[in-house]
């Protein structure tokens, strides 16, 4: 029995290690955004929209440093790689009128900030959506 369970676990781990985990975009539960589309997420993260459908000011959150999750996220919502995204922000930041999403240290910090700010949005990988009562998923990227 133990051996069987271990075998299944190993198999699951192996499959999990090979298949990339889903990315979930999360928002503050009080914001009550319902579900959002990739385009809506892209418009928020790329600075196009200055207010959310319910009127609150969006606060998109990002990670410090480069990571596979980050690249996958942007590739998924904009179809661009990190270099292109960085170039885009470099151009916009130069004018002083726009800023890229705030960058936080890790997943925990993001979960925490999203949970505390109404307009905040973040993205996390392989997290049980109901882990935090203050955070609710708005879109899952497979």
């Amino acid at each position, binding site marked *: 029995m133990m051996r069987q369970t271990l075998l299944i676990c190993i198999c699951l781990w192996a499959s999990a290690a090979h298949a990339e985990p889903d990315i979930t975009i999360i928002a503050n539960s009080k914001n009550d955004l319902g579900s959002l589309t990739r*385009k809506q997420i*892209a418009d928020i993260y790329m*600075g196009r929209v200055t207010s959310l459908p319910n009127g609150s000011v969006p606060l998109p959150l990002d990670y410090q440093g480069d990571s596979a999750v980050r690249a996958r996220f942007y590739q998924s919502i904009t179809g*661009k790689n990190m270099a292109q995204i960085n170039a885009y922000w470099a151009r916009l930041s130069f*004018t002083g*009128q*726009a800023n890229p999403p705030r960058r936080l240290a890790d997943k925990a910090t993001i979960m925490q900030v999203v949970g505390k700010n109404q307009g905040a949005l973040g993205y996390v990988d392989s997290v049980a959506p109901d882990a935090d009562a203050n955070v609710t998923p708005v879109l899952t990227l497979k």
Partner: protein
Amino acid sequence: MKMPKFSSLKVRLFLIVFTSTAVIGGCTVLLMFFIAFQNKLQEGEQQINQLMDTVEYSAAIASYSGNKEIANDVIKGLMRGDNVCQARLYNNDGLDISVKKYATNEQCPEIITHNLSSPFDDKEIIGHLETRMDSSIIKTRAFHQAGQLALSILALIILPGLVIWISIARLITIPIHHLSKQLHQISPGTHTRVNLIAGQKEDEIVQLVHDVNHLLGVVEITLSEEREQRVLIKEMKQKYQHLAHHDMLTGLPNRSLFTDRLQQMLAQAKRSTSHGALIYLDLDKFKPVNDTLGHNIGDLVLMAIAQRLLAAVRESDTVARIGGDEFVVLLPTIETRKDAITVAEKIRHALDQPFEVNGHIIRIGCSLGIAVYPDHGEDEISLMKNADTAMYLAKQNGRNNVQMFQEAMNPYAVSGSWPKFTAET
């Protein structure tokens, strides 16, 4: 003789070559301008499209993020294109940046619009980039290009035109002008010929010159022959006229010419009341000369007699031979009868002198009768008859004497028996 100027081949040729050159050149220039204008318009549109392509991504970012700073940069960049007179960037979210070169867009009617896609979604149109093309600058450029083209085309047309004109002038017009000028001055029948221009090559014109010269030669020969014949005819005419009016042996006027002269004298004398005289002369001892010494000697004697008669009278008097040994002398004007007697006596004396012919000494002598106009007749017939009558009297009187006509002689002239008349003084 002057050459008429209006028909000059050289001038007409020049006009034809250069008018056609100018017309073709002008049409080509117009066509060139039209083509250049279309080209420049297309080129301008292409340039603007390229310019817009260059800034399109920035414009899309500006439109996507609603960033006015980037939008302004984009518009400024577009306005740097010198054939752009308006640039505009706008989206549906209230971004609308526009810059104009001129106050109105009258000269910039053509609008070029590029749709801007979202940087993150090619399918989503997020704004528009719009420019107006400055057609006045395009026009100026087209003019410039057409002008340059026109100049080179004109040079290309004028140079061959000039070469053609010069060649035709050298080969045809100048030689023909040269030929025509010379021919114009040549009178047919003279020895003048047409000269070739130095160094002229054998061609149709040179052939023409040779043929013309040949023709001139033929004309010269024909004309000179004709001239000779005409001279001959004139000479013969004169000769026969002379023969008709003169005695062949002595060259003196004959009866026909003498009658003319006498009539002339009578006509003139009637108008001027002047006097004239007719002397009838018959040789006394001529027949024996002919009979004994032969006709040749007789002829020579007659010729010598003619010379003596001519020497005895004035230039204006007429001596004529009217028969074998009969002569008449007409004195058209005399003052008195004595003048006529003086001349008659002079003649009688001259012919009374001996002749020496071929070693023979020959004595002839003559009898003379005088009739005076108007006393002894007013027409030629009566004058001749009366002079003849007076001469017969002289014969009757023993020859070698002079008798003036008297009315009393007439009955005897008819009866033929003559009394002795004493000479009238």
